[in-house]
């Protein structure tokens, strides 16, 4: 690999994070046991708990470790509604929410309740006033669910959008929902922003989804941060682990790595974001110099750090990504979720992007350690791939 620009899938692990993984992989002993071999793993989990929950500034017991952010989303939505005793839930989200949040919402509202999707503007932004109106009463509905005028039981706010890089004003959205619909549970999906943006007091949400990736931890690690006093039922039922809210043996190496990554990310956040924003600017400048190429989503200073998504006329995004991979450059087609399904991304469709532009989208994501040489290589590979594919297309 000559250039790695797929941090949307996984980040290279920092040395200290990899050391935690290796250290606890080599250790024998369950943190739940009574003997001496339990002490190290138990202390490692306690330390990780403090480091991860510090992202929101809540007490140490307010974190539940999960196997990645998708499980955390499932736990937040299903566990929150179960503890609230809601049989026919009304859930509010937006079409740019992570596909797992939308899948859970559709499953829970399949037979009763409703899923309401807030409109987004051409840059993918949700209006606080429109979200509050939707949460409080009625509004545009997901086509699969029946109409209802019941106030929302749960609202999902997506802080950073993985495909197009949109950053929502999550604090304003949460405040608007809270004012209009005080009983609704608010779930903040911070998978794309944890470690890169402040999440103080969960930005007003009750439950905060954390993924390991943007912290620099393995992508299979994650956590749900729970505002003190928020009630939650477990999704994975078992024993005493995670305060009874997530049964099953702890992934000690993953949790310790997540804690170390959270600690390093908090210490290094400003410098990381500065470097990643500079990468976005460099990449965007180089990619947009290719004739017929457009930037999807917000302008570079307003989008997720390190994130660029572009579409080029006359090519398919998957073909471009494969051509770049053949040259040793790792990027993603525009949507990982619809990859292979032969469909344009529903996120880009919701933002009003024409079908051809949506199908030609390619996503490049840099990290704090991305080099100038990698970006030069990626831009050159993109230009070459687009030119080559256009040359093969019928005129």
């Amino acid at each position, binding site marked *: 690999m000559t250039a790695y620009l797929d941090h949307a899938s996984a980040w290279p692990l920092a040395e200290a994070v990899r050391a935690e993984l290796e250290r606890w992989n080599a250790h024998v002993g369950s943190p739940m046991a009574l003997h001496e071999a339990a002490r190290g793993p138990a202390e490692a989990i306690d330390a990780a708990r403090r480091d991860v929950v510090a992202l929101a500034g809540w007490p140490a017991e307010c974190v539940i470790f999960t196997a990645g952010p998708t499980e955390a989303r499932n736990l937040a939505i299903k566990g929150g509604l179960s503890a609230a005793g809601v049989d026919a839930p009304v859930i509010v989200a937006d079409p740019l929410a992570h596909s797992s949040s939308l899948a859970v919402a559709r499953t829970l509202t399949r037979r009763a309740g409703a899923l309401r999707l807030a409109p987004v503007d051409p840059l993918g932004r949700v209006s606080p006033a429109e979200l509050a109106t939707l949460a409080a009463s009625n509004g545009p509905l997901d086509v699969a669910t029946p109409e209802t005028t019941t106030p929302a039981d749960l609202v999902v706010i997506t802080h950073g959008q993985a495909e197009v890089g949109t950053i929502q004003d999550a604090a304003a959205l949460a405040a608007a929902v809270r004012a209009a619909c005080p009983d609704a549970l608010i779930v903040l999906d911070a998978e794309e922003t944890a470690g890169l943006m402040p999440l103080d007091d969960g930005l007003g949400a009750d439950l905060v989804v954390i993924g390991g990736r943007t912290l620099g931890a393995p992508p299979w690690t994650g956590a749900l941060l729970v505002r003190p006093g928020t*009630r*939650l039922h477990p999704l994975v*039922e078992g024993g005493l682990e995670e305060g009874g809210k997530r049964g099953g043996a702890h992934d000690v190496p993953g949790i310790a790595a997540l804690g170390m990554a959270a600690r390093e990310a908090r210490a290094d956040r400003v410098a990381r974001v500065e470097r990643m924003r500079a990468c976005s600017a460099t990449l965007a400048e180089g990619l947009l110099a290719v004739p017929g190429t457009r930037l999807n989503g917000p302008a570079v200073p307003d989008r997720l750090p390190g994130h660029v998504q572009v579409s080029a006329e006359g090519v398919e995004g998957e073909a471009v990504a494969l051509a770049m991979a053949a040259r040793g450059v790792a990027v993603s087609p525009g949507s990982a979720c619809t990859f292979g399904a032969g469909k344009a991304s529903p996120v880009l469709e919701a933002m009003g992007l024409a079908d051809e532009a949506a199908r030609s989208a390619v996503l490049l994501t840099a990290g704090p350690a991305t080099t100038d040489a990698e970006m030069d290589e990626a831009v050159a590979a993109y230009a070459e791939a687009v030119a080559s594919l256009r040359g093969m297309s019928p005129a």
Partner: protein
Amino acid sequence: MSTPHDRSVDALGTWCPVPVTMARDAVARMAPGEVLEVLADDPMVFLDLPAWCHDHGHEVLSMEQRRDVITSLIRVR
């Protein structure tokens, strides 16, 4: 408005004996005379928690159910 307590255990969504075990772990970190609140929704706590308290000398101050949530208050021996 919850009754004053020194520590709280949220065992909602878990089934006995987990709520009792969580109460045990919390009590181990508390001083005599302090009050522990246990939130649970498994009706078995009406039997299991008083039995455990009886065995260990703790006093059950109250057990109340509101909708699905059973709130127990225990004074530590």
